[in-house]
């Protein structure tokens, strides 16, 4: 029973990883840039979400606004920097990304934006019911997270596989030149990719904000590298891989803590797993050749 409860908690934890990593892996797939500033998008999403929620009182509207704004924010990041750095050595966009992350985190902390303090995000379960069975239970918040994650993943899945736009991203992630030679307008396609990936990060920010009932300027510190561990574990650019890696990581983390406690901080555990895997399977769990 405890086992099942741990498992269901791990599932929710995994959901909060999945959305973040899904957005990042999409972006990485097409651009092959270590987009650390993705974590800034996540924070901006959470911040916009909490603002919208306190003004409007409706979680779903707040979520939509947050996703939209973070999507636009992501596109701006792309068009203002990465767009010009696509053919540079890889350290160049990486350092630019670090620069943006430092800049945005610092800016967000200023009183006219988020301020230094944590803000509550008291959306609760957004009116959803808690689920309680004999074996496991989900709180309303957990139901909300599960539901939103599943819905968003379903939408992403449909976009990726059923629309031309999604097809164009997949094509561009495999062979950017060839994609353009079947008529894909790379500028638009990549921008749209950034929009969706960033919107997912925004949604992740909102959900984590609600789950922990707190939103703060440095909340992106952890996801900035956690998401990378996940997408590497999953094989850079692979969405199913990212989902699988999120699940595995969340379960490993939860069960290690539940069984032997914190042998190491969970991030170090994740990194150890990552280093070991890189040594033996350099292309990730579901990576392409």
């Amino acid at each position, binding site marked *: 029973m405890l086992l099942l409860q741990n498992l269901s908690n791990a599932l929710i934890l995994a959901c909060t990883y999945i959305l973040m990593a899904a957005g990042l892996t999409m972006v990485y797939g097409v651009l*092959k840039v*270590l987009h650390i500033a993705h974590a800034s998008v996540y924070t901006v999403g959470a911040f916009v979400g909490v603002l919208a929620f306190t003004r409007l009182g409706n979680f779903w509207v707040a979520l939509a606004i947050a996703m939209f704004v973070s999507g636009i924010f992501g596109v701006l990041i792309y068009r203002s*920097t990465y767009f*010009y*750095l696509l053919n*540079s*050595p*890889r*350290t*160049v*966009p*990486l*350092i*630019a990304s*670090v*620069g*943006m*992350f*430092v*800049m*945005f*985190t*610092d*800016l967000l902390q*200023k009183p006219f934006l988020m301020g230094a303090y944590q803000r509550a995000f008291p959306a609760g379960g957004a009116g959803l019911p808690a689920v309680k069975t004999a074996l496991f239970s989900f709180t309303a918040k957990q139901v909300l997270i599960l539901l939103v994650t599943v819905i968003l993943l379903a939408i992403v899945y449909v976009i990726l596989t059923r629309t031309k736009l999604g097809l164009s991203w997949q094509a561009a992630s495999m062979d950017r030149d060839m994609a353009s030679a079947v008529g894909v307008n790379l500028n638009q396609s990549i921008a749209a990719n950034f929009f969706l990936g960033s919107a997912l990060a925004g949604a992740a920010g909102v959900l984590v904000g609600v789950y922990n009932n707190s939103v703060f300027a440095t909340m992106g510190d952890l996801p900035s*590298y956690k998401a*990378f*561990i996940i997408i*590497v574990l999953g094989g*850079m650019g692979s969405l199913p891989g990212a989902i699988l890696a999120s699940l595995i990581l969340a379960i490993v983390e939860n069960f290690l803590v539940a069984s032997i406690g*914190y*042998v*190491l*901080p969970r*991030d*170090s555990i994740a*990194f*150890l797993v*990552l*280093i070991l895997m*890189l*040594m033996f399977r*350099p292309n990730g769990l579901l990576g392409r050749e």
Partner: protein
Amino acid sequence: MASGYFLTILTFTAMYISLALSLNILTGYAGQVSLGHAAFLGIGAYTSAVLTLRYEVPFWLAFLAAIVLTGLIGTILGLPSLRVRHDFLVLATMGINFVVVSVFKYVDFFGGAMGLVNIPAPSLFGITFRGGVPYLLLTTAYALFTLWICWYLSKTWSGLAFQTIRNDEEAAASLGVNPARYKIYAFGISAALAGGVGSLYAHFLGSVFPDNFVFVESIGMLSMVIFGGIGTLRGPIVGAILLRLIPELLRFIQDYRFTFYGALLVLMMLFQPMGLLGNDSWLWQHLTRWFRSSARSAKEDVR
């Protein structure tokens, strides 16, 4: 003018010059981009702190031990670089940083989260090097030593081998360079030099905590190398000086200094991706042109 404050800033700048130069061996010369250099700083700091505190080893011995031990650990931690490249190496080194820091944090021998405190100040001929001019001289001497090592290294076969690996590993191998061996050398030397800084760092502050060596510090070091001009000797020095001083100079807008710092990095990458004084940078080309033309006119004057 030479206040203790200014001396402190300069002391740290000297330390960071050494750090940037040592990272430059790995990233600039050998082309192995690392986001985990703070780990080596930490290993050096902890080695020296543990030896002087727990075993009452004299500072100078501990300092040497820090260099040697960090170098050895660096060679071991460099092993992933043999399997892993590019973005994956960046992430692996980032991971090494995390794991090293959590070892400091979770192993009681290293003082855990309480850190190690009351680290004695070094002394020589009865002079105690606690801060001030003596310590600045010490760190400056070490920076010069690092510079000399980097310079000398660039004249040796290893230095040449590092550059070939960065340029083209296959071509290097085809000419007899064993890339694995030289990557490990690069990791070892780079780590050893950073370990020495770690020792100086620990004895300057008098205390070390795991949080002093987190991943963000590594970002700072890599930024210095790239900002100044990767793969050159002047670049990391200038990068370390500027990026150490800029936040300090921006104290008047202290709450915004990291906004500027971040923006500066972005702009730099957009407009001068080879760094301020990299070989292809605008500034460097103008400087060398100016030097050359003034040298020429000087010659003509002589005539």
